């Protein structure tokens, strides 16, 4: 017998969701044969079987999220009694653990920030302004909405707002809600932390159509308008995949943390285009990999990063972490989302090495075969909206980078050359950068270096 466990897919990853079982109990399986698919905060991946034998039991069903190291299945290594025993011992894996889904959908326990303790001694003159204290989240992770008046009444009556259901717009706790709770004895005293008997007065907060489950899932993802304003006419509600949620959270955080500034440059890539069309076939024959434009841009970006190291950094409080490696994240669009595999040590690779790495990572990203370490530790990123025809894009910085390069579509445009109008292959490059550490002067010098490298290409590509 061999246990199959939920693997740890990256250092900071503590749980994973099983998205699909590729074998059924009773199926024979080879060692390293794909057994199930998982989705974690960082990566979606296929997990190979740790040993050969017969899949005896599935312990965690599709859609469930479990901590790492949890046993998710058992493989009978002899394979012997399996065919006979399996149907009897594990007849229906599905309804086995009914409590698990509930647990899985429960949002992560927020480490409760210190309650706005009512300070009975108003001696300290520095404004202890309790109303300025951010409202603690509800136990289910939702932000508590109230009003200055409600917070004052809560403070004066020593009431824990997280225990009071709100009936105002967007679930806001109104004056009436808190008065009703206090008069009805339903409000729990925040000092005791215990809910009084018969807690939470049953006040069916006129819930909008779908349960609040989706909205409650993420503290980072707030709704911009009251939820009930979203549901009208005909609609369908789709839960976000784990990957979608992580992308959404990451984008919100990046925009919140980094003051984005954008620069646009126009680059003449006629030389590169000519080189590529001349050597395309030869390159593929000799190297076995396709010649795209992307490695040119990666090489040029590396030149820029070496010349302007602050663009290749991260921000830690008041420290700037200057990375010595140029690890280039490449945004790869997937049918089910987006992932950013990383070309490690791009500064040490020649053109062919970068081209191979690019094609390999992109292929494996689409086949869900990336390893967790291959989507981590980028120091700079490149995204290519041009591949879908975008003239140029203003991308969001991929944290913890401080800049991201966006490639527009390459197309022939009339340009002025020596006071004549000529046709050239042109591309718009955009740089989104974090103005906390990268100033416009540096950003434009960096872009100048990238542009110069691309327009005066000298490196042999074969």
């Amino acid at each position, binding site marked *: 017998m061999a246990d199959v466990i939920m693997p740890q897919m990256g250092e900071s990853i503590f749980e994973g969701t099983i998205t699909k079982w590729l074998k059924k109990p009773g199926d024979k399986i080879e060692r390293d044969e794909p057994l199930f698919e998982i989705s974690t905060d960082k990566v979606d991946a296929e997990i190979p079987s740790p040993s050969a034998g017969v899949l005896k039991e599935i312990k965690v069903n599709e859609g469930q999220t479990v901590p790492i190291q949890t046993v998710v299945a058992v493989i009978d290594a002899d394979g012997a009694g399996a065919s006979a025993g399996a149907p009897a011992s594990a007849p229906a894996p599905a309804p086995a653990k009914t409590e698990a889904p509930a647990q899985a959908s429960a949002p992560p326990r927020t480490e409760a920030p210190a309650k706005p303790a009512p300070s009975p001694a108003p001696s300290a003159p520095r404004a202890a302004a309790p*109303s300025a204290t951010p409202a603690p989240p509800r136990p289910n992770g939702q932000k508590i909405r109230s009003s200055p*008046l409600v*917070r*004052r009444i809560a403070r004066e009556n020593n009431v824990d707002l997280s225990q009071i259901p709100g009936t105002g*717009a967007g679930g806001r706790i*109104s004056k009436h809600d808190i008065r009703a709770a206090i008069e009805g004895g339903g409000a729990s005293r925040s000092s005791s932390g215990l809910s009084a008997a018969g807690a939470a007065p049953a006040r069916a907060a006129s819930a909008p159509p779908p349960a609040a489950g989706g909205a409650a899932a993420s503290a980072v993802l707030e709704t911009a308008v009251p939820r009930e304003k979203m549901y009208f006419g005909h609609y369908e509600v789709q839960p976000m995949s784990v990957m979608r949620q992580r992308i959404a959270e990451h984008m919100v955080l990046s925009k919140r943390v980094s003051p984005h500034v954008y620069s646009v440059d126009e680059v003449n890539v006629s030389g590169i285009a000519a080189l590529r069309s001349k050597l395309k076939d030869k390159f593929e024959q000799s190297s076995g990999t396709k010649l795209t434009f992307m490695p040119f841009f990666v090489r040029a970006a590396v030149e820029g990063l070496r010349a302007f190291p602050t663009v290749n950094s991260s921000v830690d409080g008041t420290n700037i972490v200057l990375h010595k490696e140029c690890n280039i994240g490449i945004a790869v669009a997937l049918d089910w989302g987006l992932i950013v595999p990383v070309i490690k040590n791009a500064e040490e690779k020649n053109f062919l090495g970068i081209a191979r790495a690019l094609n390999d990572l992109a292929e494996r990203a689409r086949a869900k075969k990336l390893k967790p370490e291959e989507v981590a530790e980028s120091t700079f990123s490149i995204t290519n909206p041009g591949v879908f025809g975008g003239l140029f894009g203003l991308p969001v910085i991929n944290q913890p980078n401080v800049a991201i390069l966006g490639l527009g579509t390459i197309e022939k445009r009339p340009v002025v050359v020596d006071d004549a109008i000529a046709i050239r292959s042109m591309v718009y490059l955009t740089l989104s950068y974090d103005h906390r550490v990268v100033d416009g002067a540096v950003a434009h010098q960096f872009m100048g270096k990238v542009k110069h490298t691309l327009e005066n290409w000298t490196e042999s590509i074969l």
Partner: protein
Amino acid sequence: MAAITMLEGIRQAIFEEMDRDPAVVALGEDIGVYGGAFKVTEGLLARFGPERVIDAPISETAIVGAACGMGYLGLRPIVEMQFIDFIACCFNQVTNFAAKSHYRWGAPVPMVLRGPSGGGVHGGPFHSANPEMYFMHTPGLKIIYPSTAYDAKGLLKSAVRDNNPVLFFEHKYLYRRIKEEIPAEEYTVPIGKAAVRREGKDLTILSYAAMVHTSMEAAEMLAKEGIDAEVIDLRTLLPLDRDAILASVKKTNKLLIVHEDTRTGGIAGEIAALVCEAAFEDLDGPIARVTSLDTPVPYSPPLEERFLPNAEKVATAARDLAKY
């Protein structure tokens, strides 16, 4: 006693005060022989003679300048602007001389500057002004903007007796539209005191002048929906009745301010700041406002209707606030 219009209340106040005190004089464009553009001063010349009822040349600067001089010499002038819009012409006299004289030299200017104000009568951009906020920012002035015949009479009499320069705005939409029985005996209404026009518990609608009537109409609509609005008539804008405002906010915990003046820099902003400073922790919702749009008053009747607040707009804002 028969019901009288607001215009008649104002007329009575002028007559009574000129009767009572020989120092009270009246001056303005066409107020004598013609009796005033709106006939507020009809009969005044015949009654008190050309020494005390002065037809002035068409120069608001000269009129207010003369009134300042009269004040220094012990008279109590009542100045009429033919339309209040023209007060802009004597802005310097009002803000730099009348408002500051007492502070600078101990020489008070006991002047009342009154005139027909406000929109809703298709008067267009030069005859519909609500100029209160140009002057709210000027220490040394008092500003009154009544909504009823009773108040107009009582407050004008108080204004004449006040030793400070008082701007007395008369909403011309109300001149002959509202009627009210008033006491036969003499009375005054104190400056600086708001009035509760309707008691309520769910939210406070704070207003003045013609918008008090709009707010009352909205409150009746809201009452049918179960929203109990309190309506407060400020009556005096400067000085604001801080106590009345805060008392009502502390009672209902929600405040909607309605004014006919345009939005940006309107009095709602000042009141909102006052309430946030003094009663932030009594608020159960954001302070809301319904005002005219930030444009000149349109001449076109449909455009003017769109421009001005009305009961429906007030009720909509109040519903949102009640729900908050």
